[in-house]
């Protein structure tokens, strides 16, 4: 059995709930069957913001082990989203005693930091820097999924991880289509912590045109506000 922390990370919808019915469905597009249970959400622990507050809502669960759940039972469910629309249906990865809710809640709050740590570990260079200039995006690529990379020149105030240097060039996608829409977009005079990663290999034609020794920033976590400097410094110390 996976650990609770692993289950928390792998699940998209985590909640404690009380089983209301077995073999039924609360979602019109999901026909009732023996593998389903309907539960009331008692305490949402990890929920996509698009779904809002689910407290008190009925959720249909495609149970991993239906016979292990009885009506009236309270449990902590680790699930994946399945159907959203006129009700919510989820696929269960596992469930544990509801008493572990506080621990899981803590694990959920830790998820963004876990992700930040992963980005810090994979970064070649982490710097406290200011954008001095943003170059025009390269739109020469005829590939429809092109990132339309733009270069940002960084005036480095402090190197937090990696080889010491005074400046760097970071390329970021400016295209507003997937998969680039969540990447950070930099502007001149922007100041903060930059988690700089090496360009991917093999490089696309556009990436091959990057200035030598330049970096890329793709993940929303690859830029952190200046206020996070001490926190990131501590995290970097922890992962050294």
């Amino acid at each position, binding site marked *: 059995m996976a650990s609770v922390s692993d289950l928390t990370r792998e699940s*998209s919808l985590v909640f404690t709930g009380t089983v209301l019915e077995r073999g039924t469905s609360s979602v019109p597009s999901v026909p009732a069957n023996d593998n389903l249970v309907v539960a009331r959400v008692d305490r949402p622990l990890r929920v*996509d*913001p698009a779904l809002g507050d689910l407290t008190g809502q009925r959720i249909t669960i495609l149970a991993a082990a239906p016979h292990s759940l009885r009506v009236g039972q309270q449990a902590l469910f680790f699930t994946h989203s399945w*159907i959203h*629309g006129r009700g919510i249906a989820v696929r269960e990865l596992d469930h544990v005693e509801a008493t572990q809710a506080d621990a899981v809640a803590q694990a959920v709050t830790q998820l963004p930091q876990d992700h930040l740590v992963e980005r810090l570990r994979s970064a070649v260079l982490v710097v406290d820097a200011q954008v001095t200039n943003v170059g025009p995006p390269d739109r020469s690529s*005829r590939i429809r*999924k092109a990132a339309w990379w733009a270069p940002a020149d960084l005036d480095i105030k402090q190197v937090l991880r990696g080889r010491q240097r005074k400046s760097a060039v970071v390329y970021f996608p400016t295209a507003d289509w997937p998969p680039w829409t969540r990447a950070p977009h930099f502007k001149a005079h922007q100041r903060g912590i930059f988690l700089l990663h090496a360009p991917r290999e093999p490089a696309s034609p556009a990436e091959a045109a990057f200035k030598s020794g330049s970096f890329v920033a793709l993940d929303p976590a690859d830029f952190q506000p200046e206020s996070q400097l001490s926190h990131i410094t501590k995290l970097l110390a922890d992962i050294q």
Partner: protein
Amino acid sequence: MRIFRIVNAVPSDHSSETNADTEPNIAVNPANPREMVITAFTPPDSGVTNGPVYFSSDGGENWALRFDVPGNGSVDQTIGFASSSNELYMATLRSDNSNLNVDRSAHPSTGTAFSILETRSSVDQPWIHAISVASGPDMGKDRAYIGYNDNTVSQSATVDVCLDALASSPTFTQVRLEPRSVAGQDGFHIRPKPHADGTVYAGYQGWRSTSGNNTTMDMVVARDDNWGSNSFGDLKDPGDSKNGRIVASVVIDEATSLGGTRPDNGFDLQVDPNDSDIVYLSWIDNSGPNLTLRVRRSLNRGADWSADLVTVDNAALATMAINGHGTVALAYLQLVAGQWEMHCRTTEDGTTWDDTLLARTATSGFMGDYMRMVAVGPHFYGVFPAMNTPDPANFFPNGGGTFRFQRNTSGTSLVGNDGTTVIAVSVDPFFFKVEEKDLTVVLNRNPIGQDEVDARRTQPRNSPGGLPIPDAFRVIVDGFTAAELGLSAPTSTLNVPSPFSGNALQITCTGNVSETGNYGGEIQRFTFFYSLDFDTADTAFNFSTDSQDVLLTATAGAVSNSALLTFIKQPDPFLLHGDPAWLSVDLRVFTVRPNEQWFNATMGADASAAPAFIQQVMANLTSGKGTAGGQSFDDPTVLSPDEDQSKLYLQPNDENGTPVFNFALAKVHYIGLIGASKVRMFFRLRQTQVTYASFDYPPGVQYRRATSNPDGEPIALAGIEGGEYVTLPCFAAGRIDSTSVAMDQQTDATNIQDIAAIGGPEVDHFFGCWIDINQPENRLPVQVPPKQDGPFDINDPNSNFRPVPLKQALARNLHLCLVAEIAFDPAPIPLGKDPSNWDKLAQRNIAWSDVNSAQALTTFEIRPTAPGLPHDQTPDELMIDWGSTPHGTSAQIYLPAISVDDILEKANRLYSPHRLTRVDDHTLACPAAGVSYIPIPPGSNINYAGLLSLDLPPSLPKGHVYTIAVRQLTNAFGKQPPPPPKSPQIQVASRAAQGRVPAVLEWRRVLGAFQLTVPVKTKEVLLLKEERDLSVLRWIFKAIPHHNRWHPVFERYLQRIAGRVRAFGGNPTQILPSPTGDGIPRPPHRPPEPGEERRSFTGKVSGLIFDRFGDFEGFFLDTEDGERRLFSREREVAQLAERAWRERLRITVWTERDEPSRPELIVVREPPVPFEH
């Protein structure tokens, strides 16, 4: 009726989302159009590894997200259902590794993720189409075609072809489309489009050169005629003979932006589902000053292309679809005054486009590289991206449709899942559908007379002729699935409310027939049947005028339609409608042999006695109040509608050689206090069964009459249409000799009667005629001469103007329609009324065709749709009820004056599915099951002659009888009656009651109808009759001019009758034309024995006889007593006669004494020379 609907597809559970859900795509399951899927740039929920699709299982009214697409979300994604397998296929670029996956899913609501069928790397802009093979050895297999740019090669336009996508491990074969050099790569969009016949088109953009941001490119269409197995090499460009026809060369500036969306996003290719020759191509270029959308068309499989059929400036994301009617829809965004306008335009001819504005919304940067619209049956379904401000003014700004948001809204704001937090606007996918749904009310019985209701009330309920009135009207609903109408079986109903309160008029739906014969998920056409019942107080007839219209309104889904049903009272002499209407209960026919006694009258020995006989029968029945000599007119055992007892003879003698005479009787009812004087009855025979018997006097075409005969009375004349006689009057008096006297000199005194009232109760009078169609006298030409009513010259230089026996002049079927008309001056028959809807007309419009293992046949006549019918009106249709015809029966309809392609083109446009298929240029086929609808093309005022034939399955049980009813439907119009009065009981509107301008109603009415009855009998019973029929019909055929409309019909009719003779065990080649029907062989073929009545002639063949078509007909034999003429159509006789003629052989010909022209035996007297073989 076209119904527009928009639904914001983001479910309410995601009301808090603010994603840019752009670049939408859609798929609709053809096998269940209520099931559909949308994709967009909607990301997976945080923590979810599978990307979402939107899906609906209720026709797009409600949408949910399903997280089942591997890849942590998708970059590009397109989807498509196969035609019949219920399988959804998807081509998606994964977000996690950018690889192309081809996925498959059995059903959107299954609990399993999509399975990955194929993976490709370094591709861009995949576009998928799937189709199920409908016939042939691969029937049931799914084909999948994925067009994309393969970035690993420069000539990058590629289609992945999978010929069995249902296989557990399907094989995908990459086909490179581009044979020409390119500027770096091909364009972004590759659009494969398969057709059910195995044709697969693929459109792509061949990049030829670049200059700065400008790319010059060819719009290319490639074609493969074998499901993609021919490497798309079946369409060459005439310029360089390479694969792929270059439709146009254009320039696109990649640096331009329209409302934040990049250019080159309107490339699409569609093929007409009814005709793979017809293909449309669209694209957007800036060869001019603007980004311009263009649509072009090829009508010859991509070989030649039109100029721009339509252009739209500042357009983006164009998509096309062609529905089952052949209607082309074009949807696109257009930037107008800084806002996106979403348009949906359609055309039926490619040149005239309508335009519906679906939405007008704000711009919001990138909207994607495509959107999509698809067609299933008659409907269009699409999805477009738009800012989601829930302002009603944004949707259908010009009206014409309805819209719905799933996500939470408050006024013109979005609110989140908590119902209060205002959510920022963003781009959502908006589902739209354009449904073609129709509801037609067909009045089968109109008007309804109080007399009929009262008469029916005297009969047992639910019996033929009793109440309720069965099949009084029908409702035809098209464009729906069974589920949408709540139907699951033929017993399922669609309620039509009564316009009356209480029980005055009770309307009962008695069931339905589905076009496909089942109640699955397909869009189709349903026909509902309704009976009418009345309360005993006749409340429905409680009005003071002679007639009153009531409004029937039927509703299915969002579609409704109405018709006016007329109720009439009955102060005048009248005939009762039949039940069914083409078999009037007051018009009967019967046959009489010499010296037989009927209704206390005795037939004389020969034809001269016929007038006196029928006149005596009429008098006896009238004086006996319907009964005479112990026989009742109403007794079906006396005057039966059954064939064996009521069959009319075209031959003068029956099968036993006994003379036979045909008669008709009509019973006229009168209810009143005054009485009716000079009630006249006109009887008319038609050429065959007809669906058009509308009253047309004055001036009279079918119902011609002379205004004054020697008695000073009007008299019926032969009807004339298109230079031929189409109706023949029959009389109780003897027919005048039209070779010496004009037909307007005919008198018929006993068919003019005074009906005296008896204080109110019903009085019945009987009228009648001798149907002398089987008599031998020359009375009427086959073609109308200048003296159209005679007298006719038997020596007229034009042989077609010479009088011939009546059956040669008129009969074009074994069974002829008979119409009786009450000509009562105070109550003239309105123009356009017909025997089914007017009580002074009655008809007997029924044919029989016995079967065993042969085809059932009847000729018929239908009226063309009126020329110049407005585009928005439905043409006339044949509505054929196949009744209980056994499963497996197929029908053919031969209409030599009509192009079958015209009919099919109209059927494709009118009906969701239909089962009509082409046999040849003028012959249609369809399964004989349920109800078939056949649109009738427009034509002149000459009716179409046709032949209906049925191939029934073998081994039918003897004694079974099948009936087929053929109705012609036409448009009817009326003005909507005002709302019902508020008075208490009867909520019936009176049309004249209020001065309000009424709305025009349109419905369908039955113009006319006939029935084909098919009894199953044994071969032995059928053979002799069939041989006699073939003999007399062949004789009739000899008189039909080659140019006459009946000639091709009759020719095929005779071929089929000959086939029946063969099927019954006879030899049709031995049957000679004969006016008596006796041109049939007399076995055994042997020399006459002493004492037999045979004669012989010996001589030499002096000439060979051929008919006007060059067919051998006989020969002249030069004997000692002179030249004799001998007839035979046998090929062997022809060979022998020719040889004897050529070699001067002496022969002896034996004949029956009573048929001295028909050889029974031929003996060659000279030593034979070896015959050639």
